[in-house]
């Protein structure tokens, strides 16, 4: 039984399987490009409605254009299992063998394996994100209005929209348009309250939710008179920490790997 398990483990971590999976992933993603390019609208809801709901609606009913995505999920799952088995076997071998150079050399030898574990953590983070994220879409705030966060008892109000308008000459098409939208939010949890500035690419975090600025009005100084409002994408994403940690781990491994490449392999040629 143990021998059978050992054979199965080695088959699972086979490098030939890695190569085959990478090739299939490449081909599948190229196929995905053409499907996504022709039917972008089918995939847009994936950002907000979660993986399961999307698969049961858009996914299953448009298999001609979404089939590649189901295949992608299968291949990525197989790749994760294959990577874990292969990397763990190699790491155990490395830790058992006592080579020259001490801890520093060992760290450099472990670099590719750190990257492999990083990839698994990133993929796990994505899966977690697409399975468990709570999304409050199209949440609009006008000055003086507020939003209540479900379950947490928190409230978010828009105190003021304080945009910066482009006043230069260089970007003619941007003249008098908003170049930096800034919304001052008041976040209160019943016991205390604080102010935060929300902008493009600068989300605000509160009670486990992140607030992302999606749209706003008015967009220009002299344009159509529109009431002041901001549209938010509010998300509670349990996977974000995981995939950010995976990216940090992968980057660390990559740094060691490139360092090893330059210092040892290139220098000792």
């Amino acid at each position: 039984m143990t021998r059978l398990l050992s054979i199965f483990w080695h088959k699972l971590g086979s490098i030939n399987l890695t190569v085959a999976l990478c090739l299939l992933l490449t081909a599948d993603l190229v196929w995905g490009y053409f499907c996504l390019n022709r039917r972008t609208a089918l995939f847009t809801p994936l950002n907000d409605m979660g993986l399961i709901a999307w698969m049961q609606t858009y996914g299953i009913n448009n298999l001609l254009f979404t089939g590649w995505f189901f295949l992608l999920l299968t291949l990525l799952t197989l790749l994760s299992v294959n990577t874990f088995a292969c990397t763990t076997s190699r790491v155990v071998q490395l830790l058992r063998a006592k080579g020259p150079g001490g801890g520093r050399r060992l760290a450099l030898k472990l670099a590719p394996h750190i990257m492999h574990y990083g990839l698994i953590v990133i993929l796990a983070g994505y899966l977690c994100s697409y399975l468990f994220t709570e999304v409050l879409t199209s949440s609009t705030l006008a000055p003086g209005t507020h939003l209540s966060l479900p379950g947490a008892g928190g409230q978010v109000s828009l105190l003021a929209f304080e945009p910066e308008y482009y006043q230069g000459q260089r970007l003619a098409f941007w003249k008098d348009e908003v170049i930096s939208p800034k919304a001052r939010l008041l976040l209160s949890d019943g016991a205390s309250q604080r102010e935060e500035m929300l902008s493009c690419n600068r989300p605000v975090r509160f009670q486990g939710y992140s607030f992302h600025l999606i749209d706003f009005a008015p967009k220009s100084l002299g344009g159509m008179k529109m009431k002041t409002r901001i549209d938010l994408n509010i998300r509670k994403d349990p996977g974000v920490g995981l995939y950010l940690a995976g990216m940090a781990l992968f980057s660390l491994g990559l740094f060691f790997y490139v360092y090893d490449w330059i210092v040892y392999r290139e220098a000792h040629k």
Partner: protein
Amino acid sequence: MMTPQTVFQAAGALYGLALLGALLPGKRPLLVATFLVPALVCNLLVVGLRYHQAWPMLPMHLGPVALPLCLGLLYPFTAGGECEQDQQRMVRRTLLGLMVFLVLAGLCFPKDFYLPFLKSKTLLAHGFLWFGVIGKACFVFSAIWALAALAANRQAYAKHRLTVALQQSLRWAVWGFALWTVSMFNGELWSYLGWGTPVVWEDPALTLTMAAWFFYACYLHLHLTRSWNPPARALYASLGGLTILALTCVPDLGPFRSPF
């Protein structure tokens, strides 16, 4: 009047002359440099003009303009090493030919009519673009060295020449993979900060970016584990590499427009 279009035309003509100089028999590095340096200056100017019209936001679809520039700037790195002179010459000629082709594609199928968008006003967006372009340039070098390895396979002293050229191809692929990964991480961070999700499914180009990443991850595994023989690896990296790189250029190309 000096527009990015006219300066890019000038860059294309100068790249073409540099290619003709490289195709002449014998070593003519000075002649090539005479045309290549002003071509790079023109190309840099086009990038500068496009940035001038967009900064602090990201100029849209800059790839076809930025890639020849990066290839040109990396051109001196084709020299040296253990490679034979004729291999280096072949690599340089192929590289210059590819640069001319890229400029022509950029001139005939420009996609410079999109205005920059507000969410691209972050260093992560610029990092995403530039790490990606430099990474792609490294992949192009890797593919060209693999082509040289394939050609070497048919000549005398084939084994040594093939090994040396494949080693060069691997070196460039490692750098390309590192930079491509950094570019993808920049894109994912930008996507999270701007939209709250690591992948924005409105952009089909992301699938090709991932495809290229898996393609080169596979190439590195093939090299490091020696699971395919050298000619098969050279074929994979050259023809496969050029195909996947051509595909990653497709989203940056627009409808046909006469270059004159």
